[in-house]
């Protein structure tokens, strides 16, 4: 039995065919600018004390990602502020992260949590009418380092990326990062 000869050219052609035929399901997006350094700080002193552990938990999820060397640390002197304030009343926009940038570099951020929401700030399970602070905080810290929202066609609720752009009341799935979230920070800060 004769087998066709397998040249380097045909191997490359086959590889190219496979790359086209097997689409990558990358859902994460970049916002555009990113931090020039891998070590950055945030100031949580603008939050009430019961919010501060929520902020630390949320930042830590991204710091823990390996192999990315990117880290967040709390520092009251930082101008990367975490605050609470009115956005648009309860049940709509939960939080915002404003990124200031110059050229392609992020220079600072301000994160705001809506005071009108019914927040759950513990580490257990929120009630079905509560918004989980750790879930929303982890999502917002993803923006703070420059990741955009995950593409919504990949967002189906539980098990979806933390950076999916919407939150379902009472849920906690956005507290922990998914592969797609980790791929984002690992790519932006290798």
């Amino acid at each position, binding site marked *: 039995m004769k087998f066709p000869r397998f040249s380097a050219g045909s191997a490359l052609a086959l590889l190219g065919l496979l790359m086209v035929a097997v689409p990558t399901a990358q859902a994460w*997006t*970049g*916002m*555009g600018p*990113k931090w020039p350094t891998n070590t950055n700080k945030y100031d949580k002193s603008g939050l009430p004390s019961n919010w501060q552990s929520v902020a630390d938990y949320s930042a830590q999820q991204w710091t823990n990602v390996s192999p990315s060397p990117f880290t967040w640390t709390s520092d009251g002197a930082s101008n990367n502020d975490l605050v609470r304030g009115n956005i648009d009343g309860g049940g709509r926009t939960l939080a915002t992260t404003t990124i200031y940038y110059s050229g392609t570099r992020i220079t600072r951020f301000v994160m705001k949590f809506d005071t009108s929401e019914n927040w759950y700030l513990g580490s257990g399970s929120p009630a079905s009418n509560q918004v989980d602070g750790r879930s929303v905080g982890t999502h917002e810290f993803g923006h703070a380092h420059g990741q955009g*929202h995950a593409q919504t066609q990949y967002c189906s609720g539980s098990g979806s990326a933390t950076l999916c752009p919407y939150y379902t009341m009472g849920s906690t799935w956005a507290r922990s990062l998914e592969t797609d979230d980790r791929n984002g920070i690992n790519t932006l800060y290798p």
Partner: protein
Amino acid sequence: MKPFAMIAAVVALGFAAWHYAAPEPQALVHLMYQTQTFPQMAVKANAVLAGQVVGIGGTRWNQDDGSFWDREMSSGQTETALPYYEITLRVDDPIVDTTTQNLAAGHDVVLTVVGMNPRDEQEIATNLGIGSGDHGPEGLQVGQRIVVFAQNTQMAWREGTRPVLQLMGHPEQAYFTTVRGGNFESHAQEAPSGSLADLKDQVLALRDGQTTE
């Protein structure tokens, strides 16, 4: 020209050049929305409107002139502007209207979306060349026929709040668009697919007849 006049002219030109070249504050804002299912939107909406999109504005910031702002609060923290954009809808059929705006057929109504216009985000990311911005499903276009769910809200304004008619939940989930065959479909959770009449029946059934009709 006398030396003094020449120096004054150079200083004036320099100031003008500095003034006009001073970069606008560059800021990007991302938000997280609470999702609303179709039944939730149907029941809670102050307005469910069928109509045609006749305008989609660019990103504005929450003060009267629409420009970006920020300020230091007494705590030493910074308060920043909230972005929004407006969609103008020419109403064909006010399926539900519990607003005080009299959203009759033929009227144009302004709907507010809190957040940056996705096209502006995309443009920033593209111009920087190192990001892609958010890729939502094909965005809303002028000329599209939609059925949209909106609520009366008080949006934060630089000083106080401002009453607006705001899209519910995540903006991409707040409306149905027509697809091939003329049916309406939505990205909202638990959203049905069907004709305008079907959709209208379901909304009214969920609201138990609490409409303007």
